[in-house]
């Protein structure tokens, strides 16, 4: 009777066998923003068995332009994204078991959530969490799919433990000045393009069509009409601490996480990046100014106004977030501006 998957079954690489495989799989989605919404909707419609969707944020008006699962009502109710996503996804396909988890995807939480998972989809907005996902993936031998977008630009990479290089092989360390949606603006088509690359790879993995997996890092710019695929086989590093011969999974160690401290009596949280490194303050200030932020500063720091908070960024990557005692909120603001 179940007609709903007939078109998917008619697609030869999936077929009826593929449908059964998809129905038996459990996907862990880290993030329920733009990429999370898009990927979750496609996989829910495709009929995966179980979807765990993790997010630490709530729905805001500025999300509606590109985060396809959310409505004005979710904004009015300030619903957590994971909860709002689960509500909508259950309406789309009641056959899928949806598990919303409203939390920060720390290494500890990832360890708890990884049991029984067949695939992790990266829908985060920061490299700190991505590197933790990368280590968890290697440790538990579970594939994950990197996706990211900013402006009209985006990229994706499929990481299969034991077969491909990992994100740590490619990046070596976390870029402290990565662009994020909030600093660079974003158009919905760039989200959808990244989602298309991620979810197509997800379907290949779920039906176990390993031959079909894309082995390149794909990047595109929909406004500037650029598209490139980079072969990454050479990036495999036997000395990599995440996937090499003597691995330590450095990003599962909380020592390497962003450190945050509430400054007593000052209504301020200090955030320290996991790795110290120089930030080009003048470049960052110019970038933020062009995006409409009120920025002032001196050679040692820049100050940025963001709604009720003020962020002071030092050249070693450290920041003070004034106007809050909430560590999670402070971390969110920090990562929006500094990736």
């Amino acid at each position, binding site marked *: 009777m179940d007609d709903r998957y007939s078109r998917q079954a008619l697609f030869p690489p999936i077929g009826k066998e593929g449908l059964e495989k998809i129905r038996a799989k459990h996907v862990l989605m880290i993030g329920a923003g733009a990429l999370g919404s898009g990927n979750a909707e496609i996989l829910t419609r495709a009929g995966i068995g179980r979807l765990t969707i993790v997010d630490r944020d709530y729905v805001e008006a500025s999300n509606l332009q590109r985060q396809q699962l959310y409505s004005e009502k979710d904004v009015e109710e300030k619903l957590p994204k994971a909860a709002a996503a689960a509500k909508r996804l259950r309406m789309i396909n009641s056959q899928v078991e949806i598990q919303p988890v409203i939390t920060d995807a720390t290494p500890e939480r990832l360890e708890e959530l990884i049991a029984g998972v067949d695939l992790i989809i990266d829908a985060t907005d920061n490299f700190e969490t991505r590197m933790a996902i990368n280590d968890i993936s290697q440790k538990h031998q579970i594939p994950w799919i990197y996706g*990211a977008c900013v402006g009209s630009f985006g990229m994706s990479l499929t990481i299969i433990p034991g077969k491909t290089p990992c994100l740590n092989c490619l990046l070596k360390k976390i870029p402290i000045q990565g662009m994020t949606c909030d600093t660079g603006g974003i158009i919905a088509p760039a989200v959808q393009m990244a989602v298309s690359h991620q979810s197509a790879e997800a379907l290949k993995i779920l039906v176990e069509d390993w031959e079909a997996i894309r082995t390149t890092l794909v990047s595109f710019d929909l406004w500037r009409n650029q598209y490139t695929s980079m*072969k990454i086989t050479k990036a495999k590093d036997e000395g990599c601490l995440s996937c090499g011969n003597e691995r330590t999974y450095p990003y599962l160690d909380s020592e390497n996480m962003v450190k945050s401290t509430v400054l007593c009596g000052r209504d301020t949280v200090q955030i320290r990046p996991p790795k110290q*490194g120089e930030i080009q303050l003048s470049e960052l200030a110019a*970038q933020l100014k062009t995006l409409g932020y009120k920025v002032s500063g001196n050679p040692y720091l820049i100050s940025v106004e963001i709604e009720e908070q003020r962020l002071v960024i030092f050249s070693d990557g450290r920041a003070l977030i004034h106007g809050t005692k909430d560590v999670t909120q402070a971390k969110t603001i920090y990562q929006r501006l500094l990736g």
Partner: protein
Amino acid sequence: MNKILFFAHLRDVVGEESLSFDAAGKTVAQLKGLLTKKYDSMNLDHVMTAINEEFASDEDVVQEGDLIAFIPPVSGG
């Protein structure tokens, strides 16, 4: 001569999509250094490099005619 392609915000820094530049014999790290000097607000520290559409490390040496692309990892999602 080499053609150098710039992606995402790097293209705004350079002002065009690609650049002709003689980089033969130089390592990727040396080339990054030269470009950083040429463009004040360019930061290539964490940018991935492809030579002829293949991942290149900072130690790899550019050959005459190689196509080089600088692809910044992005974090938004």
